[in-house]
């Protein structure tokens, strides 16, 4: 499953980058995120509650960042599993200045689902992923634009 898209935030690239690298702000923006903590190996441990159609559950996950080029791009590897199955994916996030003084975040990646989520929820997976991503960026940009609300 391919996930890709772009989102623009009316804030300078460095600011957006800072927020993107902060576990607290990410956790805050990610709906259903119950935990996002750095692990000793440099990755992040996450606990996420997601419902895909009839498959609702808590997923234990691991997020790893690689090829980090501040404030331009990084690669992200995500692995999560729960009673409903597993999700794994890999993608790239890159930031560029848009022509209105803001920042354009472009993301593209491949995700794989397995278990119940695949056999029961697959028709909804793509739509759910899009929804999760959109909600994330909306909440994320709110934070970036009004830091005090954080």
């Amino acid at each position, binding site marked *: 499953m391919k996930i890709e898209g772009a989102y623009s935030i009316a804030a300078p690239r460095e600011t957006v980058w800072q927020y993107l690298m902060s576990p607290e702000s990410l956790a805050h923006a990610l709906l259903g995120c119950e935990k996002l903590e750095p692990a000793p190996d440099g990755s992040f441990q996450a606990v996420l509650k997601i419902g895909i159609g009839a498959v609702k559950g808590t997923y234990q996950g691991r997020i790893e960042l690689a090829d980090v080029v501040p404030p331009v791009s990084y690669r992200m590897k995500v692995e999560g599993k729960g*009673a409903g199955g597993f999700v794994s994916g890999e993608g790239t996030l890159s930031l560029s200045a848009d022509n209105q003084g803001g920042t354009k975040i472009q993301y593209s990646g491949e995700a794989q689902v397995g278990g119940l989520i695949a056999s029961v929820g697959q028709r909804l997976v793509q739509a759910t992923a899009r929804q999760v991503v959109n909600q994330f960026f909306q909440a994320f940009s709110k934070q970036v634009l009004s830091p005090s609300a954080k």
Partner: protein
Amino acid sequence: MAIAILGERIKRKEDPRLIQGRSHYVDDFKLDGMLHMAFARSIYAHARIKSVDVTAAEKMPGVMAVLTGADLKGKLGLVPCAAGMEGLKVPDHPCLAIDEVRYAGEPVAAVIATDRYLARDAAEKIEVDYEPLPVVVNPEKAIEPGSPLVHQKLGDNLAFVAKLEGGDWKAIEADTSLKVVKQRLVNQRLAPASMETRGVIASYSPGEDMLTVWSSTQIPHILKTQLAIMTGLDEARCRVIAPEVGGAFGSKLNVYGEEGVACFASRMLGKPVKWIEGRRENMLATIHGRDQINNVEIYVQPDGKVMGLKCWIIADLGAYHQLLTPAIPTLTALMILGCYNIPNVFVETKGVFTNKMATDAYRGAGRPEATYIIERIMDIAAREMNMDPAEFRMKNFPQPKEFPLALPTGVTYDTANYQKALKKLTKISGYAKLRREQEKLRKKGKYLGLGLSTYVEICAMGPSSRMPAGGWEFGSVRIDPTGKVTVLSGTSPHGQGEETTFAQIVAEGFGIPYDDVTVFHGDTGMVPLGIGTFGSRTTAVGGTAIHNAVEKLKKKMARIAAPKLEVKPGELIFESGKIQTKDGAKSVAFGDIVAEAIFAKQLPPGIEPGLAEQFVFEPPNYTFPFGAHLAVVEIDAETGEVKLRNYYAVDDCGRVLNPMLVDGQIHGGLAQGIGQALWEDHVYDENGQLLTGTLMDYAMPKAHQFPWFETSGMETRTPVNPLGVKGVGEAGTIGSTPAVVNAVVDALSQHGVRHVDMPLKPEKIWRILNQPMSA
């Protein structure tokens, strides 16, 4: 006057209890102290099991035990495969995975708890740490060098290669006048999806050292033997009962790991253990059907006579062998010539392992694939030869007087009249008129298609020499002191209605009321021997065993009656509750001779008291029912939707004992075959995840999608059994799939279409209609 009973539309003995919900399926049995089992299944198509942590599950109150593959290793036998063929690779198939999982849905651990829901909740608490391994899903890629291996130990994914060759290929290949017509066909994977899922209760009594198993199975006797082997119990200590079974279609012609685990758990805990499969489990982990890729070519003379057929079959077996997995595609090779007298044949079958659930017998089991191959390529060839498909078929049928007909595939067809079936079909359907209508509609830009299928299939399985566990069947008939009759059959009907058919056979034989006969089956504690119900064998083989047991009893009764009537035993017939001379001048009541035989006061010397006889019938050959089907479809050019407008079927299943039951089999079979052509497709993604895991995603046919089926019959009896019965359980499914595809391709031919792979869903058709016309 005798009451005609064989050949009559007699209502089923089974129906009142089933319709009124007063009978019992496995899940209806509730035993004292019964525990419930649930499985944790692999979420990966291929992975190494690094660890299985069951502590959280074990701690839950009410959980009595949690079992993993390691717990069963060396203590519970492997899931059996009965198919034996030269060079077959048989990988170990443990009931619960050990070290590695090889398909999504493979059972990894079992929880046994006091409550069904608790067992399920606890199964979700089992933590399995997997290391994903490379997956292979596509069977053609699986046999390429460098493919990921399903079983590392086996060295490759090729389970077997089987070749079948007959005729003189040198002459054929040298003959440049022959036109070679080729096509690649994909026969997609299907879900049997019986209404009742699988289910088992294993109840071990430590005191008596007896294991009683209720299972939703088609083969209680074979299951009993296999469970005894797996558990190590003496077979005498095992009893298997198949109560009401809510559909199976071949999917319960099997021995499943879950059945083994239930027996193991019950022995370990000394309590009954029940497992009822959920629908999602059923879609994932009950065997699947079909899944072949066929490259076929035929060699046609300028006059339309087909001289040779070659086919390369790739059969996707899935990750492990179930009971008959590798044997199914070999039936495709056996029946690939269909009802045509093609003198030269070559078939190479490759059975291939992939990271998917095992395929195995599903209604038709290898023969729908054969019929699809031959009926599609005949249609394609007819078009290329500019001949009407009916005329082209007619040209290649053997003459009725040529039967029994030995084919280069090695089988001998018993009896047939293919010409008569096709003529009858074209007459009742108004074929010529439909062709004219098609011409007219085409001019208006409308799509109407006519699809023929003339099939022959192989039934009444079968001679023991060709069957893995024997092909005979057992029947016994006992006349009780009251004159009522008790019949036992080693078959295990599960919806087919043979309690009715068998009672008809016995009532007709003895000339007694049909209601005086009671038929039992499906309990190894009651029926001493049996093979089971599959391969359209129940009436032809099992019914014959009962018929022959009746004949034995009649001989004995005639010997007792003859001296009383002062005639020879051979002069007596059984009619209307009497044993009498043919002219009816001398007679004695049936009940009087029953009393004589059982109370044994004045039996002639040399006659044993009692009236109980058994017969084990060994069929000398298979039977070969046949028929001709016509599908008429309309295609909506706007949406691509295929509307099945009419369906005509002429089926000849030999002698018909109860036309209503035959109709039922044909109607249900047609729905399944048409379902494959138009809608059904069990889909895995490239990572081996099943995408059609529910009935929301898997397009199960519904009644409103079908027109009224115009069915009619013919009776060409077989000499293979004394009843003349051939079998009809799978005919509808076998004949209908190619008829519908031929019809759709016929409709699309004006758009330059030569072939479309199934299922013919609207999206696929719409895309074809909305792309530039091919050359």
